[in-house]
């Protein structure tokens, strides 16, 4: 609209018939752009809103609205609907209900441990990259970006092959039997999360005046003191933002977990994938809605922390 208003005086100056024709076209163009933008926002939001609305729909198989219900949410906790059994087998339902809570618990444990490790290592390497010049710095820089751009499936497959060879080696040389599970998932999550934490913390460090640290060093503080008294309080929002991002990524990860998980280490996304692939019940809408709310809360928190001055 602003473009239209700004250019109007110009059109008055040009020959009248042409100006009228062009003015009409232009406003049509403006309307097309507004319409397109609105449609694009609808495209982004409608699928999500439909999931939320249908999680309260009483209808089981059709997409017709057959009244409001909370039974899909209840069924998540009772296990009904999760396996698509709906009252067929009580034992199976209890098992499924345990499954969902169990996978949520697994996800939280994995995400917490992976976040603590990745945030520590990511912050440290961010400091090294942003505050020091050294040989091979560019090589480390590339290695740090690789996990962000590499296709997830490539990373997942390479890790599972690596772990399998490692396990074979362990059993042959040391006689130790190891299988895929929590440790392999956590190791893999840390491997991609370090990079994301480093990016966020480096952005924070880049906006910081190194004179403060130099002044503290001149005043006789050692590196350790400079870090905890000066640097850390200043980059704290970045570190927390990075940590929350790592936590969200870990909690949400499907592809890499899909390959590095073993029996008994099913995470929430793996469980939901199973539901999507092998059942069709509105209980998936309910769990999707809950996961969406969870992600939104985490991300909003992360963004607020990163923006804090």
């Amino acid at each position, binding site marked *: 609209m*602003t*473009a239209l208003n*700004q*250019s109007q005086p*110009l059109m008055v100056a040009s020959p009248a018939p042409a100006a009228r024709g062009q003015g009409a076209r*232009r406003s049509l163009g403006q309307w097309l752009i507004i319409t*397109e*933008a609105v449609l*694009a926002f609808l*495209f*982004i*939001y*409608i*699928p*999500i809103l*439909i*999931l939320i609305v*249908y999680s309260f729909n009483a209808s089981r*198989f*059709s*997409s017709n609205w057959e009244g409001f219900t909370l039974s899909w949410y209840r069924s998540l906790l009772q296990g009904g609907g999760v396996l698509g059994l709906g009252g067929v087998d009580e034992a199976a339902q209890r098992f499924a209900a345990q499954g969902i809570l169990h996978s949520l618990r697994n996800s939280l444990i994995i995400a917490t441990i992976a976040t603590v490790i990745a945030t520590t*290592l990511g912050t440290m*390497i961010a400091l*090294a990259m942003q505050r*020091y010049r*050294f040989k091979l710095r560019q090589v*480390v820089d590339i*290695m740090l970006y*690789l*996990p962000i*751009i*590499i*296709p*997830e*499936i*490539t990373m997942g*497959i*390479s*890790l599972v*092959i*690596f772990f399998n*060879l490692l396990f074979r080696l362990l059993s042959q040389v040391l006689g130790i039997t190891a299988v895929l599970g929590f440790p392999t998932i956590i*190791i893999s999550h*840390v*491997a991609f999360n*370090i990079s994301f934490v480093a990016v966020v913390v480096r952005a924070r460090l880049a906006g910081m005046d190194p004179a403060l640290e130099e002044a503290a060093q001149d005043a006789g503080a050692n*590196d350790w003191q400079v870090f905890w008294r000066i640097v850390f309080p200043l980059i704290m929002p970045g570190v927390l933002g990075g940590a929350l991002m790592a936590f*969200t990524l870990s909690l*949400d990860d*499907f*592809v890499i977990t899909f390959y590095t998980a073993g029996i008994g280490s099913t995470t929430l996304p793996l469980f*939901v994938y199973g539901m*999507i*692939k092998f059942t069709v019940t509105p209980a998936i809408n309910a769990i*999707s809605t809950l*996961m*969406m709310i969870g992600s*939104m809360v985490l*991300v*909003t928190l992360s963004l607020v922390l990163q923006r804090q001055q």
Partner: protein
Amino acid sequence: MDMIVQAHEAARQRQRQQQRTLHFLLAPATIWLLVFFMLPLLIMLVISFMKRGTYGGVVPEFNLANYAQLLNADYFIIFQRTMVLAVATTVLCLVIAYPMAYWIARQPPRLRSVLVMLVIIPFWTNFLVRTYAWMVLLRNEGVINTLLLSLGLIDEPLTMLFTPFAVIVGLVYGELPFMVLPLYANLEKFDYSLMEAAHDAGANNFWAFVRVMLPLTLPGIVAGCILVFIPSIGAFVTPDILGGSKSVMIGNLIDRQFKAARDWPFASTISITLMVIVSLAVALYFRLVGESDRTI
């Protein structure tokens, strides 16, 4: 003289301490990435040149058969299709995102940042959930078919789920913000008085856009296209959930070779090839997109 020596010594000590601090900061993450990221990739590269054992497993015998196998029509068609789907996704994202980013960039500053947030927020929800949402919309008894049937526009449900169409919709939906953000960054910086100047010089809207706005926002276009293309070419979840047998992509092929066929060497070969394609796209990104235009 003594003082100079002392100062020199102090400086060296300081340097040594700095060196120690640097190593302390650098070592843990570097070692982690070397062992749990670079080494697995290296192993995969080596295995990609080996043979599959009779019962799965790997026979350590160097050969190029796996790479030659990529040219086999059955596999080549999947590479071709993946390219087509990724390019289609990129073009559609560009067409949807450009006017959208333009509109956002022309709003008052405060509204702008709210609108940008509105673009980003939904994409932080779980990818599986977002993909599943399209299953609810596209399936035969889904929302779109139910709506069209009840409006009397169609007599029988349209088959949309498990088709290449569904995969493209899912990919566009998943990658759209990667296009909107770099375009917006460019369109926001764009000096709109240049358009008036072009009009003054006698250009109509179309030519002003083609000759002025398009070249000046080209960095954003290039950045957005590459950023959408990269995840699209490596997609696995979207074609796995929304696609059918006619929309198998490279990601699904890798998964099948690895799990169903238990052919680790060939799965490695495809993964390495995929990585090379992605690396080329990334190299292009750093080559073509200046540092100031990079949003990611």
